[in-house]
């Protein structure tokens, strides 16, 4: 009993060490780089797979779940991914560490808070993660910055090929890859892009985006689930149909039709802001900056909301050459955090960094202890103030 408790505490400490290695910075896919990065934040492709000759998880005993976990963990940890990988035992991780993994998009909320033996294999640069024993035995994803779906598809296909050499997947010629839920059947692929659409909201045209998504049979959700899209203007769109359409057809539909259409909507709205609603734009940006530079208590939701306006300002300056009074002021700020930005002016990296590092679990993990909501709000405000105030 004591041995078990001792080894569990060592494992927790080990997990915390691995996570604090990555928690001080943003991940590659959130770096603000890549094609169409001013609107397409990131591209993600996820594949669901199950082992043949095993039940789906809802019908597995704990022993069978452990057997699947060990088998897949060994296979995944032996892959040559061109990056170091580490494993986190999710069922043994603390709630804070699990929340951190969710904030980081390394695991799903369901995986974090379900029951039974389960884990995640993570590539150190976070472009690849594989959840073991989520709804399916294996759910793996490749994430990249900007619009890079073809590259994601190529990489995950290669990883899938390597895994397939070592295990037998549940597969039927009629229905394709067999998944616990029939909605994922077939290719079992989920193609998603995360989009930043603040101008559509400011010009009251979000419906246009929702209608387009609905017509193209896409699922829309916020960055961290229900409600959060309104705060951060970040929307994730994904395919829903996985049977009867090939992986390459889904990817090319996103690249050739879906993304260009939505990007055009947002770009048109950004141009409208510049030509006819400049006061609205400058008001939003200036208010956001004033609050972020001066607030002493700021909630996560409010920070996401205000940082979204700064991201819009910086991107409109960098990608459209916009120079309204508020944008000019924003981009002439001297950044005090010389480790991040050597050039003058607020960069998109700083905005994204503040966005991610001030999320509740990131704050606490980097602070080294749990904090109540009021203390988190104070610490968040302090970090943001010190990064955004001019170096005078």
């Amino acid at each position, binding site marked *: 009993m004591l041995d078990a408790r001792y080894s569990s505490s060592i494992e927790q400490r080990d997990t915390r060490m691995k996570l604090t290695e990555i928690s001080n910075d943003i991940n590659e896919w959130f770096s603000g780089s890549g094609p169409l990065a001013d609107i397409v934040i990131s591209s993600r492709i996820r594949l669901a797979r199950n082992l043949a000759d095993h039940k789906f998880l809802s*019908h597995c005993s704990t022993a069978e779940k452990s057997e699947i976990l060990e088998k897949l963990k060994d296979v995944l940890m032996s892959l040559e991914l061109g990056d170091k990988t580490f494993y986190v035992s999710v069922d043994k991780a603390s709630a804070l560490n699990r929340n951190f993994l969710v904030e980081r998009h390394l695991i799903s909320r369901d995986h974090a808070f379900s029951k039974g033996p389960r884990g995640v294999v993570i590539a150190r640069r976070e472009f690849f993660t594989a959840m073991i024993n989520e*709804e399916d035995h294996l759910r793996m994803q490749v994430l990249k910055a900007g619009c890079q779906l073809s590259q994601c598809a190529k990489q995950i296909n290669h990883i899938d090929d390597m895994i397939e050499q070592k295990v037998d997947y549940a597969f039927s*010629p009629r229905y394709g890859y067999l998944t*616990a*839920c029939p909605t994922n059947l*077939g290719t079992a692929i989920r193609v998603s892009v995360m989009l930043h659409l603040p101008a559509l909201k400011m010009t009251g045209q979000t419906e246009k985006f929702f209608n387009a998504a609905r017509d193209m049979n896409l699922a829309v959700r916020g960055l961290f689930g229900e409600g959060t899209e309104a705060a951060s203007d970040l929307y994730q769109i994904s395919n829903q149909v996985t049977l009867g359409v*090939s992986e390459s057809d889904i990817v090319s539909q996103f690249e050739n039709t879906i993304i260009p259409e939505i990007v055009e909507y947002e770009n048109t709205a950004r141009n409208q802001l510049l030509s006819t609603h400049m006061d609205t734009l400058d008001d939003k940006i200036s208010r956001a900056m004033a609050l972020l530079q001066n607030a002493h208590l700021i909630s996560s939701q409010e920070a996401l909301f205000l940082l979204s306006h700064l991201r819009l300002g910086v991107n409109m300056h960098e990608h459209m050459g916009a120079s309204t009074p508020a944008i000019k002021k924003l981009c002439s700020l001297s950044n005090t955090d010389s480790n991040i930005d050597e050039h003058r002016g607020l960069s998109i990296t700083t905005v994204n960094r503040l966005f991610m590092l001030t999320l509740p679990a990131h704050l606490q993990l980097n602070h080294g202890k749990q904090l109540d909501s009021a203390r988190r709000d104070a610490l968040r405000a302090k970090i943001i103030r010190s990064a955004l105030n001019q170096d005078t």
Partner: protein
Amino acid sequence: MQCQICKKKTATIHLTEIAEGLRTEVHMCEHCAQEQGIAAKSQISVNELLSSLLAAQPTDDELFGPSEHQTPCPHCGFTLDQFRKAGVLGCPYDYEIFEKSLLPLIEKAHDGKTSHCGKAPSRISQPAKKQIERSNLRRQLEAAVRNEDYELAAKLRDKIKKYES
């Protein structure tokens, strides 16, 4: 963002109203929105959606007689009744065992499609590989016809004929 009404909870409902050219925005929590008579439709989980879709299908009693939905899968002991509640299946064999009941649901979830097209594991049998290849070619043929690329369509048609012979 804080609810503008109770000033306590987080605002998750964001209402934009445009009246006589004036635009107003109200941010409130779900509770206050409901009190204001604004319907807040919560997100339905995929599993719930599936269960409701399945419930809309003809019942198993109608399809197979009264005992079918309680007949367990010989491989995992799973029943259709359990699927109705959980929205997930018990084992890969369930797709075969409960095919008749699942097919309408699969069709509905996948925009009318009922057969796989795309990647397959390299280690599957030759006949299975051929089946998938045929399915892939048929989809390509449909796309070629849709795009009015008749030269490609003719090539694909010949290829499919060859496969079928």
